C-alpha cells in the first residue's frame, strides 16, 4: 500500500489510485454533505492561529507577483531603446532597464521563495494539528465507533484526506492568489499598452472558458470511475493472494487469472478513458496560447505599420499575453482540486466531530481497593436500542467467584464483557461493583479494576518488553521476565537474537498465534486488578502448552472474580455459575450440575462432545 504519491504537483488530482484495500472516498464517512461555508469556517479556525504568518504571506505574494509583472514592461522599454536599429541603439537606457529588470526579478524570486516557505510552514502546522485532533478524537471515541467503522476508512482519512487538504492549502491557495494577481495585473498592463490589441482576448478567453467547463464536466466522472475500477482490482488482488494456497491445492490458478483479467481490463480501460481526456489539456492550453500569439502578431503588426504601437510594446504584450491565458486555464484545475480538498476536509471534520464517550459525571467516584463483588440486576441491552438482546439479566458474582459464559462462536458472548467494562452502556437495570453503580464511577478506575486477555491478541510495534509491560508503569525487567516465565514464553523470547528487546513488527519476527497469545497472557499477569476477564484466552494455545500454563492461569485467577468466555466445555465445569448464550441472548444460567439436570441447550452441547460415531 505504498501508492501514496508524494505531494508533487505533477501527481495532483490523481493521488488516490484506490491504493491498497482502502477504497477511495472513505466509505462510511460519505454521508450527507456539510455546508461548504461551515467547512471553510472550520478550516479558517485552523488557519486563524497563524493569522500573522498568513498576512505576511499575503503581502509577499502580492508584492512578489506585482514585481514580476513589471519585468515584461521593462523589457519592452529596453527593446524600444534597441528598436532604432543599427548604430542607433540607446545603450544607457538598455543598461538601466536591464539592471532594473535584474533587481526586480531578484526581489520577486526572493519573495516567492519566502512565500513558499511560509506556506509550507503554515500548512505543516495546520496538518500537524489536524492529525493530532483526529487522533486525539480517535482515542476518546467509544468502542462502538470501532465496531462500526473500518480501519482502512479511518486511515485513509488521516493519511490521504489530510494530505489532500495540506496540498491544497500550501499550493492551491498560493496558486489561486498568484493567478488572480497575474491575470488582473497582466490585464491592466496590457490595457496600458494597447486596449485595441486586447480585442484578441475577446476571442480566445471564451474559447478557454468553454473548453474548461466541458473538460471538467467530462473528466471528473471518468476519474472517479478510474479510481473505483482500480480499487476493485486491488481489492481482488488482496483477496486472491490470501487464498493462493487453496487455489494451488485445487489447481484453479487459471480460473482466477481469467477473473483477474476482467478486473485488469476494466481498470486499464477506465484509465485509458480518463487519461485520453486528461491528456488533451496540455495541447489545448498550448493551442489557446499559440492562437493568441498568432492573433497578437497579426494585429500588432498591423498596428505597428500604422504607427499605433512600438516594437517594445508588442514584445511586452506578447509576454503578458502568455502570462494572461495560462492562469485562466489553471483556474479549472485549481477549482477541481479545491473541491476535492473540501470533500477531504469534510471527511476529516466529520471524524473530528464524532461524539466521544460522554465524560464521567463530575461527582464520579474513583474505584479503589475493591474486592470484586460484581452484581447485575435486571440488565437489558441491545446494540440497536430497538433490538434488545439481553433481557432482564440478573447475576451475582461475589468476590473470587468464577463465572463462565459459553455458547457457539458468534453468539454474543463478548456482549456481557462490553457492558461490564462500559464499552457500551446498558439500556436499563443496574451493574454494580462493590455496591457502586458503574455509571457513577470514573471510567478509568472502573476499567483498571479489570484485567483482560482477549482472543484477538493485540501486540503493537515495539519491543517484547514494552508489549508485556504495556499495562503498568515503572515495571522492571525482572517483573516482566517473571510473568513471561509463568506464561511459558520466556525461553522462546531468550532464543530470539535480541531477547526482550526484539522489536515486534509486521515484517520482523513471525510469532505464531499461540506465542502472541502467551505474550498477552504475560501482560495480564503483570497486572493486579481484582476482576479478570478471559475471552477464549487460550483458544490459540495448544493443549500441551495450555496444560503447562494452567498453574499460572490458576494463580492468575486465584482470589479474583473471573469472567471466563470459553469454547471448551471441560474448562468451565468448575465455574460457580455458567451463562449459556445463544443467538445473542442468555438462554440458560446455573451451575454445571443444575444445567445438566435441566437437560437444556447446555446438556445437549456437553453430551455432543462425547458422542460416538
Amino acid at each position: 500500500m505504498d501508492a501514496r504519491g508524494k505531494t508533487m504537483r505533477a501527481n495532483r488530482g490523481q493521488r488516490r489510485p484506490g491504493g491498497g484495500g482502502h477504497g477511495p472516498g472513505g466509505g462510511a464517512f460519505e454521508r450527507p454533505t456539510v455546508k461548504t461555508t461551515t467547512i471553510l469556517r472550520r478550516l479558517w479556525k485552523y488557519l486563524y492561529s497563524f493569522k500573522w504568518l498568513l498576512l505576511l504571506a499575503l503581502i509577499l505574494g502580492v508584492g512578489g507577483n506585482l514585481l514580476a509583472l513589471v519585468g515584461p514592461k521593462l523589457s519592452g522599454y529596453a527593446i524600444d531603446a534597441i528598436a532604432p536599429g543599427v548604430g542607433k541603439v540607446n545603450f544607457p537606457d538598455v543598461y538601466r532597464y536591464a539592471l532594473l529588470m535584474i533587481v526586480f526579478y531578484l526581489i520577486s524570486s526572493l519573495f516567492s521563495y519566502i512565500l513558499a516557505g511560509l506556506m509550507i510552514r503554515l500548512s505543516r502546522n495546520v496538518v500537524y494539528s489536524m492529525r493530532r485532533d483526529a487522533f486525539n478524537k480517535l482515542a476518546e471515541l467509544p468502542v462502538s465507533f470501532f465496531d462500526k467503522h473500518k480501519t482502512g476508512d479511518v486511515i485513509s482519512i488521516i493519511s490521504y484526506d489530510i494530505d489532500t487538504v495540506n496540498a491544497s492549502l500550501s499550493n492551491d491557495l498560493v496558486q489561486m492568489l498568484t493567478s488572480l494577481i497575474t491575470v488582473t495585473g497582466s490585464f491592466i498592463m496590457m490595457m496600458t499598452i494597447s486596449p485595441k490589441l486586447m480585442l484578441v482576448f475577446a476571442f480566445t478567453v471564451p474559447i478557454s472558458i468553454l473548453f474548461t467547463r466541458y473538460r471538467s464536466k467530462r473528466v471528473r466522472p471518468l476519474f472517479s470511475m478510474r479510481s473505483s475500477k482500480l480499487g476493485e482490482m486491488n481489492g481482488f488482488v488482496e483477496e486472491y493472494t490470501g487464498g493462493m494456497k487453496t487455489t494451488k491445492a485445487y489447481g484453479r490458478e487459471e480460473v482466477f487469472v481469467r477473473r483477474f483479467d476482467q478486473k485488469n481490463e476494466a481498470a486499464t480501460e477506465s484509465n485509458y478513458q480518463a487519461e485520453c481526456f486528461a491528456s488533451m489539456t496540455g495541447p489545448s492550453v498550448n493551442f489557446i496560447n499559440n492562437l493568441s500569439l498568432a492573433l497578437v502578431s497579426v494585429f500588432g503588426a498591423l498596428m505597428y505599420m500604422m504607427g499605433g504601437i512600438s516594437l517594445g510594446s508588442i514584445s511586452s504584450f506578447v509576454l503578458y499575453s502568455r502570462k494572461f491565458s495560462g492562469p485562466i486555464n489553471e483556474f479549472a484545475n485549481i477549482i477541481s482540486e479545491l473541491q476535492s480538498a473540501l470533500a477531504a476536509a469534510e471527511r476529516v471534520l466529520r471524524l473530528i466531530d464524532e461524539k466521544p464517550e460522554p465524560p464521567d459525571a463530575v461527582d464520579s467516584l474513583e474505584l479503589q481497593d475493591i474486592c470484586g463483588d460484581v452484581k447485575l440486576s435486571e440488565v437489558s441491552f441491545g446494540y440497536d436500542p430497538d433490538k434488545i438482546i439481553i433481557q432482564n439479566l440478573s447475576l451475582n458474582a461475589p468476590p473470587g467467584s468464577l463465572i463462565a459464559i459459553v455458547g457457539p462462536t458468534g453468539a454474543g458472548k463478548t456482549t456481557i464483557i462490553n457492558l461490564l467494562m462500559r464499552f457500551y452502556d446498558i439500556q436499563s437495570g443496574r451493574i454494580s461493583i462493590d455496591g457502586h453503580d458503574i455509571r457513577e464511577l470514573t471510567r478509568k478506575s472502573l476499567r483498571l479494576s479489570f484485567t483482560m486477555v482477549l482472543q484477538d491478541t493485540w501486540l503493537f510495534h515495539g519491543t517484547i518488553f514494552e508489549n508485556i509491560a504495556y499495562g503498568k508503569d515503572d515495571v522492571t525487567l525482572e517483573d516482566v521476565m517473571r510473568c513471561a516465565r509463568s506464561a511459558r514464553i520466556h525461553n522462546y523470547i531468550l532464543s530470539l537474537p535480541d531477547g526482550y528487546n526484539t522489536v515486534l513488527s509486521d515484517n520482523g519476527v513471525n510469532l505464531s498465534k499461540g506465542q502472541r497469545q502467551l505474550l498477552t497472557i504475560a501482560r495480564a499477569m503483570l497486572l493486579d486488578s481484582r476482576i479478570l476477564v478471559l475471552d477464549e484466552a487460550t483458544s490459540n494455545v495448544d493443549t500441551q502448552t495450555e496444560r503447562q500454563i494452567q498453574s499460572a492461569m490458576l494463580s492468575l485467577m486465584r482470589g479474583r472474580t473471573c469472567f471466563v468466555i470459553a469454547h471448551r466445555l471441560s474448562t468451565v465445569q468448575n465455574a460457580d455459575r455458567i451463562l449459556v448464550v445463544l443467538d445473542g441472548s442468555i438462554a440458560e444460567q446455573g451451575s454445571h450440575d443444575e444445567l445438566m439436570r435441566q437437560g437444556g441447550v447446555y446438556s445437549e452441547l456437553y453430551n455432543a462432545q462425547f458422542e460416538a460415531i
Partner: protein
Amino acid sequence: MVAIATFMADNPYSYGKAGSRMKTLYIYIKPHLRVMLLQFVVKFGGTIIELLLPWMLSTILDDIVPSGNMKKVYLWGGLMVLCSIFALLGNVIANRMSTKTSKKIIGKLRHDLFKKVSALSCRQTDTFTLPSLISRMTSDTYNAHQLVDRMQRLGVRAPILLLGGIIVTMLIEPVLTLVLIGTLPLLGLVIWYVSRKGIPMYTEAQSSLDKLVNKVQENMTGVRVIKALSKSEYEKGKFDEVNLELAKKEQRAGMLMALTNPAMNLLLNIGLTLVIVVGAFRVHGGFALPGKIIAFLSYFTIILNALMMVSRLFLIYTKGAASAKRIAEVLEAPEDIMTGDRDHKPGDYHIEFRDVCFSYNKIRSNILNLSFCIKRGETLGIIGPTGSGKSTIIQLLLRFYDPDAGEIRISGDKLSGIPPEELHGKFGVVFQNDFLYEDTIYENIDFGRMLSEKQIKKAAVTAQAAEFIAERQNGFQDILAVKGANLSGGQKQRILIARALAGNPEILILDDSSSALDYKTDAELRKMLKRDFSDTTTVIVAQRVSSIMYADKILVLDDAQVIGYGTHKELLFSCESYKEIYRVQMGVVG
C-alpha cells in the same frame, strides 16, 4: 507461520541487478515499438510546428512590417493559426495513441505478473511475503503505468522542445543562442541538486507516514485493550511523536522542493535580461534585428518549460524504475518446483511417508524422520502442539514444498514425478482460516471447477451446510462478503468443507477446519463423512481429541517428531502425551 525473518538476510530470491531493472519493462514495450515510432513522428511534427511560431512572429515584425505588405501579414498570421491547429491535432492524437499503447503494455504486464504470482512456489511466496506481492501487483504496476504513460508523452515532448528550441534559435541568431545555452547548465544544476537531495527526503517522509498509519491501525485494532488499560493519554503522546517527526520531515522536503521554482525563474529571467543586453550590441552592430529578440524571449520561456518537464520526468522515472525493479524481481523468479520422471513403486498404501525430513528455514527442523502409511479409505488423525509440524505434513503432501530428505508417495507414485494438474486433482482441502471470496455461495463451493449442481448440493448436505444456506435470503445464490465476513466461523468452515467434498476427492484434507463447529455438528459431520465418503482417504489435523479419536491411525507430534502413532486405544496405553491431552480435554480420568 514460519519464522522467515532469519533467512531473509541472505535472500536467495533478490534477483535483478540495478542496471537491468528496466529490461523487463522493455520486453513489454518492444512489441509496440512500431506504433510508438509513429506516435513519435506525429508528436514530433506537432511539437516542431509549435516551435516555429515565435520565429514566424519575428519574421512578421522584422521582414514583413518594413515592407508594408498587409496581405503578407494576414498570410503569415493565417499560417500561424494553421500551425497552432496542426500542433493541437498532432499532440492530441499522439497523446491518445500513447495512452492506448500504455494501456496495452500495462494490461499485459499485470496479466503476466498475476499469473506468475499464482505460479510461484510457496517457498518463493514466503520469501517475497504476501503484503509485498500485493503491493507489487497493485501500487507498483500503477507506478509503472504512470511511468510508461508520462515517458511517452513528456519524455518525447521535453527533449524535442529543448533540442528543437536550441536548434531553431541557432538558426535565427547563433550568438544570442550562446547566451541561452550558457544559462542551461545552471538550470540543470538546480534540477540535479534538488532531485538528488529531495528524493531521499521524500523517501524518509514516506517511511514516517507509514509509521503514522501503523500507529492509527494499532490503535483501532487494540481499542479494547487500550481503553481497558486506560492508555489513551499515553497513546496520544506516542502519536504526537510520530506526527511531529512526519511534519518535520515533510517540511524539510517541502522547503527544498520549493527552491526549484523561484531559482529557475530567477535564472531564466537573468538569462532574458542578458539576451536583451547582448541583443542590443548585436542590433547596434547591425548583426540582428529587434524582432529576433522578441522571438528569443518566447523561446526562452519554451525551453524553460521543457526543463521543468525534464525535472518532473526525473522524479517519475525514479519512482517508476523502483517499481519496475520490484515487478521484474517477481517475473524473473525461476521456477523452483519441477516435475521429475514418473517413479512408481507398487504397494497397497495410498499415502506413504518414508523418513521425511523438512525445514522451512534450513536451520530448525520442522519435520524429522517422519514415516507413516495409510490405505485407501482410511482416516489419519494428526494432533500435537502448535508449531509441532502438523500443518507442515499437509504442505508436503500437497507438494507446496519438497522434503529435504526421504520420500512421499501417493498410490505408489513418488510425489515429485506427478504432474501438478494430476496431483492437485486428487485433493479436497480445507486449510486453517481458508479462503472465501466475494461471490455466491455456489461459486465458493464450486471454486471454478464447473461441477454439477447435484454435486454441489450433495456436498453442502454432507458438510452440514445445506440447512443454514437454505435459510439465507437467496440460498446458494447469496453473495458472500469479502473473506466471508457475513458468515459465522462455523458457517465458513462448513462451506469450505463442502468445497472440499464437492469434487469427490481421492484424498480429503481437513487442517484444523472444524474448530469453530460445536461438538454436535462436528460429530454429525464425521458421521456423514463415514457414510458418504468411505472410499476417500482422509487426513484430519486437529486440536480437539474428539475430532480425531475415531481415526484409523493417529499421529501424535511434538517438536517436529512423532511421539505416538497408532489407534486411539493403542495410544491411550502407549503415549503419555496423548493420554494427557485426552484427559484434559474430555475431563475424563483415563
